[in-house]
């Protein structure tokens, strides 16, 4: 029987006379071995080093099995354990925690004998069978959190969990290029997840269509003028709402088939780069610094920057070659932004999808990702605090092949497209 938790209070409006708190992050120093856990968690995995001989999980990370000195390999791990010790920290020499006490941590006995220090969900009690999950904390470093009941209706009422995730609930979201199937679906999914307000960026608002009407029909949505290809438009919007954007979703959908030898290649690429690549840079130049400065702004903090990317950002798919190239450029810039956001508490999340279910993919074989699924999984990844999320079978397949052997994937894509 899990105890029920009181709902998280809705954030109060910021007092403009008060100082914006400086960004504090939890300790970020890790060994290279320790960083591996963060790299796994960033992709939403629960993997630990396991002994190649006795198959036992090992923690903290080591260079050899402490039972038999055999080599170790990171593998999916059983996340079930028992909570055997707990404490409530009332103070900490680390400023990040000092400001957040009381804070509960505990020791989970994983797999009968592997002690794992973990943040505790408020519903955990000593002796409980608990499930461990990995999250990236505000330093973008993986930490364990223990849960006694992952299906609890009160799961997300936990303040420590909220600190580790980017839940849209009670938060304000800007969706760029919102007049697209993905934009509309995202507005719906964010609303469903409890977002307080959604700014839907619309170019040429005088052009009425079903998407605009759908957006205007939602109580949480405010349409705002935004043309990603126009620096002034982006700056003006930032001046207007920059300080209110907690989650920014960079969506710039423009799919055209073709590689570099097709006649329209350069014209298409220019358009797409203007919107997707330079659009990203325009957003980063204006919204980036504002969000960075608000990463620790109490409960009203900026929390995530999401990029909707093609999985072919990792390796070029010649059938949509220039499209892949623009996404590759955006991915590279997103990695740069991630570096520049370090220490601010703002997460840069990349959502990779394969071909979407839309007109310009009419020659592409299924499976294709629907806008609703795309939006749902992005919201899920924000709630899970992920850094990279791969949406749909194609994206996961390409990601797996990319990780396995990037060269092989390149050759496969050059051969037959998939």
């Amino acid at each position: 029987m899990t105890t029920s938790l009181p709902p998280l209070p809705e954030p109060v409006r910021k007092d403009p006379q008060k100082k914006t708190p400086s960004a504090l992050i939890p300790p970020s120093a890790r060994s290279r071995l320790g960083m591996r856990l963060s790299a796994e968690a960033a992709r939403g995995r629960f993997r630990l080093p396991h002994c190649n001989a006795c198959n036992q999980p090992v923690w903290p990370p080591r260079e050899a099995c402490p039972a038999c000195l055999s080599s170790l390999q990171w593998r999916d791990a059983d996340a079930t354990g028992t909570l055997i010790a707990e404490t409530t920290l009332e103070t900490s020499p680390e400023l990040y925690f000092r400001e957040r006490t009381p804070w509960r941590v505990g020791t989970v006995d994983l797999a009968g004998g592997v002690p794992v220090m973990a943040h505790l969900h408020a519903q955990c009690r000593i002796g409980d069978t608990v499930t461990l999950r990995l999250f990236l904390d505000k330093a973008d470093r993986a930490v364990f959190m223990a849960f006694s009941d992952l299906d609890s209706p009160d799961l997300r009422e936990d303040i420590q969990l909220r600190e580790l995730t980017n839940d849209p609930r009670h938060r304000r979201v800007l969706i760029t290029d919102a007049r697209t199937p993905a934009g509309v679906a995202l507005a719906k999914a964010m609303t469903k997840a409890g977002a307080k307000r959604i700014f839907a960026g619309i170019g040429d608002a005088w052009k009425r269509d079903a998407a605009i009407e759908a957006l205007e029909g939602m109580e949480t949505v405010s349409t705002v003028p935004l043309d990603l290809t126009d620096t002034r438009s982006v700056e003006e919007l930032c001046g207007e709402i920059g300080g209110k954007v907690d989650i920014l979703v960079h969506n710039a959908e423009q799919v055209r088939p073709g590689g570099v030898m097709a006649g329209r290649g350069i014209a298409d690429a220019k358009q797409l780069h203007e919107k997707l690549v330079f659009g990203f840079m325009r957003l980063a130049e204006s919204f980036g610094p504002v969000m960075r400065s608000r990463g620790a702004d109490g409960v009203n903090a900026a929390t995530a920057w999401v990029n909707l990317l093609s999985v072919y950002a990792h390796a070029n798919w010649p059938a949509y070659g220039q499209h892949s190239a623009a996404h590759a450029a955006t991915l590279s810039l997103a990695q740069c932004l991630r570096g520049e956001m370090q220490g601010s508490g703002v997460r840069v999340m990349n959502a990779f999808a394969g071909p979407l279910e839309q007109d310009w993919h009419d020659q592409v074989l299924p499976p294709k990702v629907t806008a609703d699924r795309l939006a749902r999984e992005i919201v899920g990844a924000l709630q899970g605090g992920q850094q990279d999320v791969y949406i749909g079978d194609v994206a996961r397949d390409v990601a797996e092949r990319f990780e396995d052997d990037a060269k092989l994937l390149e050759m496969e894509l050059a051969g037959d497209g998939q």
Partner: protein
Amino acid sequence: MSTGFEDIVITAPTSVAYTRFSNESAHWWLLAALRDMLAGAGLRPADIDGLTVSSFTLHPDSAVGFTQHAGLSLGWLEHLPMGGASGVIALRRAARAIQCGDASIVACLSGDTNQLDSFRQTLSRFSHFSNDAAWPYGSGGANGYFALIADHYMRRFGIARETFGQIAAAQRSNALYYPHALMKTPLSVEQYLDARMIASPLGLFDCVMPCAGSESFMVMRADTAHRLGLPAVRPLAIIERHNGFAEDPVQFRGGWTYDRDQLWQRAGCAPADMDFVQTYDDYPVISLMQLEDLGFFEKGAGDAFIAGHDLTCGGSFPHNTSGGQLSVGQAGAAGGFLGIVEAVRQLTGSAIGAAVPNARRALVSGFGMVNYDRGVCSAAAVLERANQPATAARHPTTTESEAAA
């Protein structure tokens, strides 16, 4: 089977008065101890040919860098980064080196400075395991980790916080007489229980105060000490264990349990023969664990044992007679020497605080290095008063270094 220590003795117990914070370097504190100790023993630097060094804040220097810093030319050198176990282990290493003829007079030094942020800095890069798997959880080092150990221990054995309070309160009574103790206000069990929580179940008086200071002693042959007119103490038996009981998912016993039979057998005596005990008291729960694991009472029977004894210097079970780290302060690695230095003073009749009457034998134990979630090193020594030279003077207690501090 480990052999005995024959005519090896410990002498020249030296403490440099502690300060809460210090702008001096670790080198300064170690040198102050060395200078005081040599002066007290009537020796020149060239007379020592062996050295052990234990210090956290000496980093990035090691014992090697210190040797050059101090201008010492040595035939034998040990760097012992074993925290709270380093005092007992320094004694063991030095004794064996002398027995083997590799050194004749070994100075065992410990000391740390405590600049405003050095405690956090030391802990925030304490070990790979700590950085990867413990420090990110906010405990801020030992307090959080030992809270988890204490939480489990209290549940497992049904130990009450009052018991920890009795240990802390008795040590404070001892500290009131100890000149170097930083905490000089009497402490009652009620005050212990009412104090603010630091990391449940640990409250303010479960925790040591980080400070600057140094502790040191010398190891030599009995005849050397005799010739120098130095009162001395004999080690009867010494044990150490590293990474004992790694299979326990949370620490509820220390490596002492492995080796205690050997300890008492080699020492030729039993826990009941001890006139006082110095445990490593980074937290009262750890003192309790040492006492039971070394055989003073059954595992888990701490409530009754502590309630049934008076732990002050004049009591039925004198424990941490200087006041221990809980009341004197934790001067980094010197915390691992405090017990042994105090024991040598008590056994040679030269206590600088309250004295245990007619003390002949004592147990000193050490515990150190929370690499991840538990103390990895454990050690213990049984000591006995040696035949004292006829001309033995009281050990010097404080010298010019103290005034400078």
